[in-house]
């Protein structure tokens, strides 16, 4: 899951609602089928609901250091 920095939102030390805002802003810049990576220390279930409603797919992986790496397809 190596993603370029310009397609990555590293929200691990951000306060709510910044992770959500940053993710939605990046999704706005992507074309359909393009992917982005969200890094967070929790699973963002509320974001998942919004992604689901908007027709995005995502795959989540928990890394050893406690980071959830979430690959979202626009």
């Amino acid at each position: 899951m190596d993603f370029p920095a310009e397609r990555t939102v590293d929200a691990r030390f951000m306060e709510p609602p910044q992770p959500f805002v940053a993710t939605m802003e990046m999704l706005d810049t992507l074309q359909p089928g393009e992917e982005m990576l969200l890094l967070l220390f929790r699973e963002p279930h509320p974001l998942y609901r919004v992604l689901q409603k908007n027709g995005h797919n995502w795959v989540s992986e928990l890394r050893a250091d406690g980071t959830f790496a979430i690959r979202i397809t626009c």
Partner: protein
Amino acid sequence: MQALLAFEQGPPVAVPARFFLTAPLYLVLAGVLLAFEGQAVFASRWTPAALALTHLLTLGFMLQIMLGALIQILPVVAGAHLPQPRLLAAVVHPALNLGVLSLALGFLQGASTWMYAAAVFLVIALGVFIAASGWALWRVPSTSPSIRGLKIALLALLITVVSGVYMLLALAGGWPLVLDRVANLHAGWGLGGWTAILLAAVAYVVVPMFQLTPGYPARLAWWFPRLVFLALLLWSVGALVGVEWLVTVARVLLVLTTGGFVIATLLLQKKRRRARVDVTFRYWQFALYAVLAALTMALAEGVWPALGEFKAWPLLLGLLVVLGGDVAFITGMLYKIVPFLLWFDLQNRSAIGQPPPAMNRLLAEVEAEYQLYLFYLAGGGLLAAWIWPAAMVIPAGVLIVLTGAGLFLNLVRACWRYRGFRLQAVVNGERA
């Protein structure tokens, strides 16, 4: 953007608020009981007053807040949606409170009628809650340690309830029962299983989120709930079939696992990026060190079993875990959750272009600080009462009453201010 925490799909703020506003009153009741019956409380953990006091704190305060918070946060932490949350709260809240009050009266008066009533109310409250949250949780896959932890914690709650109701019926009906063995297991499943695993499962999310710390290492987060559950199972089997070495191994495993989690949390907090030390952080630090002290006592008892023979030993251990640890941790959490929920509701209601008031206008940090100082004083008072019960139970009881009253006042004040801002939002034109 407000969908961030999915509270639109969650229950309205009044649902958890009724639990949060009722809980501090049990601290007040516990303080009153301590002031009047304190010498009996400190005489032995088995006196009616000690049993009543324990359950006013563990059910009336702790469980009450945990249930209210779970109804609100299960969608956020686990993506699990409870069926009919308003109806659930409308059943669970009154049944739980009638159950706790009946239980305390049953213990204090030794009256079987109150004990039967408590059993009925508590089975309704907790049976309905376990069924509803179990249904919601087992429909979601365990994709994170938090979800796995919540499921395991719920199983531990079920075992706690079954063992508690069994003992209650045995006491009321005069059945023969090896009370101390079952009571130890009941306390172990309630405090070590349900409470510790639940707090850990929630801490995995809220410690990094509120304190801006790194996340819990994945291996620790996955294994902590499983190891605690395993330790409690081994302890139960050992105790019920009379294999003492198994009980010892299980208790050592429980102490080491819990100690590992506490130390990991302290280390994470050292790496936090939020420089400001707020009331929640100070409550959590107090809780972590109190639990660490209790675990050290438990280990010492493992090495020198004679320590456990002193009547005062398990009392201090219980005080450290319940009041020093769990009550402090939960109160600290409350100071984050309540202003946030109220603020979030206002944000959803406020007209576009009119931001909601800052969170500290609902509950000022200095107000929470005064209550924290009362809590510190109450802790000191209890320690003094443990050493000199005859002289100190009344001051300690009064300090607990003030701590509970301070918390109640702070929460009511926040709700009152919320009401004012909400009326203002109506005047300004709520968002459609």
